């Protein structure tokens, strides 16, 4: 069955939010919704990789940015595709302020809990956008 949704994290390397978003997308794509959701490299959109552009054009796109810079959303939009839903890790963190990640890549227990919460949030958004599409 062809996957309908592509979720793109920013994977920013300067802050923990980037790793949290990335790991949440992996949890979604590999564990929660392997039949419905895929991901691809954000950088491939920048270099106009035809396969990456086609993937994004033909599917529903959700972006998950670390912070208010919104790099993933902006990159997708600059490729000519409207983002159906743009989330930010920082918004999830505001609601779970006790879950401070321990490092930028090594998130520790609290960071991994936040990953899980975010993956669930993404899962809900996938349900919503797929229902809307039907």
């Amino acid at each position, binding site marked *: 069955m062809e996957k309908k949704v592509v979720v793109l994290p920013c994977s920013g390397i300067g*802050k*923990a*939010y980037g790793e949290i978003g990335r790991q949440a997308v992996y949890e979604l794509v590999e564990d929660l919704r392997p039949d419905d959701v895929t991901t691809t490299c954000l950088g491939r959109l920048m270099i106009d990789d035809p396969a990456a552009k086609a993937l994004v054009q033909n599917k529903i796109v959700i972006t998950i940015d670390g*912070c*208010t810079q919104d790099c993933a959303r902006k990159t997708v939009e600059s490729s000519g595709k409207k983002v159906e839903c743009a989330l930010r890790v*920082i918004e999830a*963190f*505001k609601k779970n*302020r006790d879950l*401070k*990640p321990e490092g930028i890549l090594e998130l520790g227990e609290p960071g991994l809990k936040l990953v899980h919460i975010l993956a669930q949030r993404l899962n809900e958004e996938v349900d919503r956008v797929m229902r809307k599409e039907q």
Partner: protein
Amino acid sequence: MSNDFMEMTYDKFIFRVENSYLYHPDECWVKRNGDLVTVGVTDFFQKTIGDVIFIELPETGTELTKGDEAGMIETIKVNVTLISPVSGTIKEVNGGLGDNPQWVNTEPYGEGWLFKMAPSDWEADKKELMEARVYFSLMEKKITKEMAKE
């Protein structure tokens, strides 16, 4: 470079100082507007602490002495206590920061202002604040020292 700001670039970071404000060594700025002063944090400060996710500010009517605690800023990295750079009474707090704490990061000298006070001894307190160019030199030294640690 804008006429409103002095800028220093270090690596990939650009640090700005608003020309018309006065500065306290604990990284806050003060701007006199009529009978009130507006207080905020510096660009150097917001870059050091990271993305602001929560701010606690004093209530209007609170009387503060210079150096008193005046709230708290929380980021993913740290919780930082704010201090009042002057003595006086809180007249207004920036209510927009509740939903938009990121203004402290994106517009530290504008939309990200923290609170407004009616100063009780402005002439005395003003003497302990720095003009922009003096603060800029201090900031340069701090940045060089901070970055050399990394």
